């Protein structure tokens, strides 16, 4: 199973080396990879349908319980089949759609990484590996959405998508850590068996919210939905793949995966019903106000995702069956319509629904796919879409919540979705063919076969639901329930009942709506008026505010004046250390602890104090530097008095060199000397006095603690025995702590290279001018 997941990654790496060679020519062969994986996973159908669960475990970081555990059950199987199956068609379709594109190999690389990440996501049984794959899908989709990297809107929407889904991923990581705390494991299967305990935990609600955050951002639920229409900037095969079968369904997958663990509580169900309900209705209505085919499809995808969240929220077995069927329904018809849209775009170079008419006459096979797709999306028999719709209505009418509102919401959603499906799938192919499209050519075989295949498959499943009900749907429901599901029998005819009436209403009103309301510029403009209320607008405002704050922050702290940096650092240390010292120290001066002061010490100290005063009050830079040198040498003498000759020698040399360095730098500075005003001087004076006092206090505080001489004794005793040296300081430097010294001299070298680079950096005149302009 690990090999199956890794195949995509390995292939992407393989492309890095060979992409240039077999560019374009053999790209159709790449589709063999998802096809092979599809066959591999399809081989498990019979075993899974018998209730078997296949697991594999690979150790990764066992000490942290982080392992690559994989589990193939009904839910995972459904997703793997969708990912690889639709992946196969998309890979094949792309070989012609992007034929001759200069980054075709790169595209396939991103696509296969994405596919592999998606497979890993749905197969992971460990929350940490789930998170890793989850973020990999976000990252690879970032590259896919921003594939046309020379267009600014493309880059921008890729960033938005990454931002939104990335935040969701972090919430998922937080959820993983939290659940590890609650259940003591990262394994999802083990959590299922501990569902009761987790639901009773005091952090249960927080865990639910984190999972919601991850799922809602990934699956574009209101109010995080806006990244998805933007993601339509990607080439159409990407939209097909990401938005019909894979990426956006990851959130749904997560919710379903956690249903047996977290579900059944009010927080879970009500929130899902409300959020899903708002999303499905809001974006279904939105489709009316779009005229870009991909825009319409994007909003109808969001709506479909809303329906799935809504069904998960209902939480009954009927609802789970409906959800499982609807996942298949949606994947089939949405992929069909996206591929059809891609062909239209490819052949006519427009996706404007107001302009497209009568294309049936120039590319009838595409028309068949479009119309069948629209029928399935509308839920007209005998498509599988009809089945799905009936199941959804059935589950809704039998739910325990405020039924009438839910029914109105779902029926309205379905009506608008029917309209959207008709506009995307039927409108471009009916009516009179405009003059400008009369020369449009028939697309090549490889473009129109995949959508036709998917559309026909939708009809086949509708007519013969036994192909999927027991083998695929039932295991999915079992995994959602966390136990064995009852028998699942799907059929086209359910009898003349309430649900059937609702169906008739939906189809009737929807068709009427389609006849009356055609996409138009007027509607698009009408919707634009409300843009200021949209979450996207608010987020942009928030972003601007954030940028303003951060630039203000940067200008305040990083203003390029060394003196400000120094005072900031000093102030910070004073506040932090001062707080600790004042809070925990008793002040007491013990005069008896003073040792006798010798005359030489008094003299040195006086010289030192004089040096300090001279440094502070002199008006000449050179004099200040020299006075600093005097201070340094006085300190050297103190080292000598207290028998630290090594330190004294080093300090003496360093001080000498520092003075020389200062003189060299001063030599370069301009002659004039601008003194700071009184206010600044007083402020700096106070700050530095406090700092000095604080450091003195810290030094005294350190002295008052009993010294631990164990280490010192060890060194003193072993210096000669083990390192054959009598100078303990040197032995420590070159032997006991030699590795430290090694690193220190490396750091020194880096510093020298830094100085060399900085001083030798000579900008060219043109560059210099450019930087000055900024």
């Amino acid at each position, binding site marked *: 199973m690990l090999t199956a997941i890794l195949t995509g990654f390995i292939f992407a790496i393989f492309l890095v080396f060979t992409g240039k060679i077999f560019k374009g020519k053999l790209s159709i062969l790449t589709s063999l990879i998802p096809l092979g994986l599809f066959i591999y996973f399809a081989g498990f159908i019979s075993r899974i349908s018998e209730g078997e669960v296949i697991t594999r475990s690979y150790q990764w970081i066992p000490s942290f319980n982080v392992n690559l555990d994989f589990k193939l059950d009904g839910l995972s199987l459904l997703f793997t089949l969708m990912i690889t199956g639709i992946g196969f068609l998309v890979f094949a379709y792309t070989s012609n759609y992007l034929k001759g594109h200069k980054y075709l190999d790169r595209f396939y690389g991103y696509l296969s990484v994405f596919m592999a990440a998606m497979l890993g996501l749905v197969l992971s049984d460990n929350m940490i590996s789930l998170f890793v794959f989850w973020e990999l899908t976000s990252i690879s989709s970032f590259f896919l959405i921003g594939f046309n990297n020379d267009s600014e809107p493309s880059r921008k929407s890729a960033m938005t998508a990454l931002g939104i889904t990335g935040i969701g991923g972090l919430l998922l990581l937080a959820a993983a850590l939290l659940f590890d705390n609650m259940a003591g494991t990262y394994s999802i299967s083990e959590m299922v068996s501990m569902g009761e305990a987790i639901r009773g935990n005091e952090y249960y609600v927080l865990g639910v919210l984190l999972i919601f955050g991850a799922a809602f951002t990934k699956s574009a639920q209101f109010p995080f939905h806006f990244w998805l229409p933007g993601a339509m900037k990607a080439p159409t095969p990407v939209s097909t793949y990401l938005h019909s079968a894979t990426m956006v369904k990851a959130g749904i997958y997560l919710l379903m995966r956690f249903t047996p663990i977290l579900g059944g509580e009010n927080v879970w169900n009500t929130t899902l019903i409300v959020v899903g309900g708002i999303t499905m209705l809001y974006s279904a209505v939105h489709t009316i106000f779009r005229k870009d085919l991909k825009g319409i499809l994007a909003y109808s995808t969001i709506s479909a995702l809303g329906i799935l969240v809504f069904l998960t929220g209902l939480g009954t077995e009927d609802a789970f069956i409906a959800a499982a069927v609807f996942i298949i329904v949606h994947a089939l018809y949405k992929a069909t319509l996206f591929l059809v849209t891609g062909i239209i775009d490819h052949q006519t170079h427009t996706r404007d629904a107001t302009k497209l008419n009568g294309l049936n006459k120039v590319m009838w096979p595409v028309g068949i796919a479009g119309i069948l797709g629209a029928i399935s999306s509308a839920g007209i028999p005998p498509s599988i879409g009809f089945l799905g719709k009936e199941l959804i209505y059935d589950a809704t009418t039998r739910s325990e919540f405020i039924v009438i509102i839910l029914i109105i919401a779902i029926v309205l959603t379905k009506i608008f979705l029917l309209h959207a499906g008709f506009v995307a799938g039927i409108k471009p192919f009916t009516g009179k063919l405009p003059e400008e499209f009369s020369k449009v050519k028939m697309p090549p075989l490889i473009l129109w076969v995949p959508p036709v295949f998917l559309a026909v498959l939708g009809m086949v499943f509708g007519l013969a639901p036994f192909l999927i009900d027991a083998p695929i749907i039932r295991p999915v429901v079992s995994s959602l329930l966390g136990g064995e599901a009852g028998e699942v029998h799907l059929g086209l005819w359910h009898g003349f009942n309430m649900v059937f009436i609702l169906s008739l209403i939906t189809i009737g009103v929807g068709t009427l709506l389609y006849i009356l309301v055609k996409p138009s510029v007027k509607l698009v403009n009408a919707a634009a008026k409300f843009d200021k209320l949209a979450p996207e607008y608010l987020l942009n405002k928030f972003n601007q505010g954030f940028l303003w704050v951060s630039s203000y922050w940067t200008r305040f702290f990083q203003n390029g004046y060394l003196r400000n940096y120094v005072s900031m650092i000093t102030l910070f240390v004073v506040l932090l250390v001062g707080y600790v010292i004042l809070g925990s120290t008793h002040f007491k001066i013990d005069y008896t602890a003073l040792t006798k002061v010798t005359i030489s010490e008094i003299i040195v100290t006086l010289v030192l104090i004089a040096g300090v005063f001279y440094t502070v009050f002199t008006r000449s830079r050179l004099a200040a530097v020299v006075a600093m040198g005097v201070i340094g040498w006085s300190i050297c003498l103190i080292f000598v008095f207290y028998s630290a000759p090594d330190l004294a020698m080093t300090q003496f040399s360093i001080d000498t060199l520092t003075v020389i360095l200062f003189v060299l*730098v001063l*030599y370069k500075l301009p002659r004039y000397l601008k003194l700071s005003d009184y206010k600044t001087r007083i402020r700096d004076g106070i700050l530095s006095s406090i700092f000095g006092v604080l450091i003195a206090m810290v030094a005294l505080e350190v002295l008052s603690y009993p010294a631990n001489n164990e280490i010192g004794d060890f060194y003193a005793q072993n210096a000669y025995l083990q390192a054959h040296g009598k100078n303990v300081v040197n032995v420590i430097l*070159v032997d006991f702590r030699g590795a430290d010294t090694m690193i220190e*001299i490396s750091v020194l070298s880096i510093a020298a*290279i830094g100085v*060399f680079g900085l001083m*030798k950096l000579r900008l060219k005149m043109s560059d210099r001018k450019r930087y000055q302009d900024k």
Partner: protein
Amino acid sequence: MRNQIRTTIILKTASNYLLPVLLIFSIFILLRGHYLPGGGFVGGLIASIAFILHSFANGLEKTRELIGIHPGYIIPMGLAVSFLSGFMPVLLYDLPFMTGLWSHDAVPILGHIGSALFFDIGVYLVVNGVTLTIIFTISESA
């Protein structure tokens, strides 16, 4: 330095004699380090002071000519010596990195010779190279 015209003849003459004396002194400090105050770090600093003094008296160009190579090249040489001295035990005797190796018989003046001494020589070179690189670079652009 630029203003070498103003340099006194006394300093110039003195520096010519001081340079070798200081260099020998720095090596002396380096070698005695293991038993008495001294070592590679201080030795390197003293050596670089010697060269800087020479450059003050005779001008930077003269000192550069005297050293022969750019001081920047001394740094990697020193690093290599230090690293190799630490790595020798691994290569020769399969001992952990930086295990001290010692000669059996004591050499006059130096005492026992061990890998630590070579490590210290590396430090000496690095410190010398770093200091001279920094000071030369800054004084050049001044």
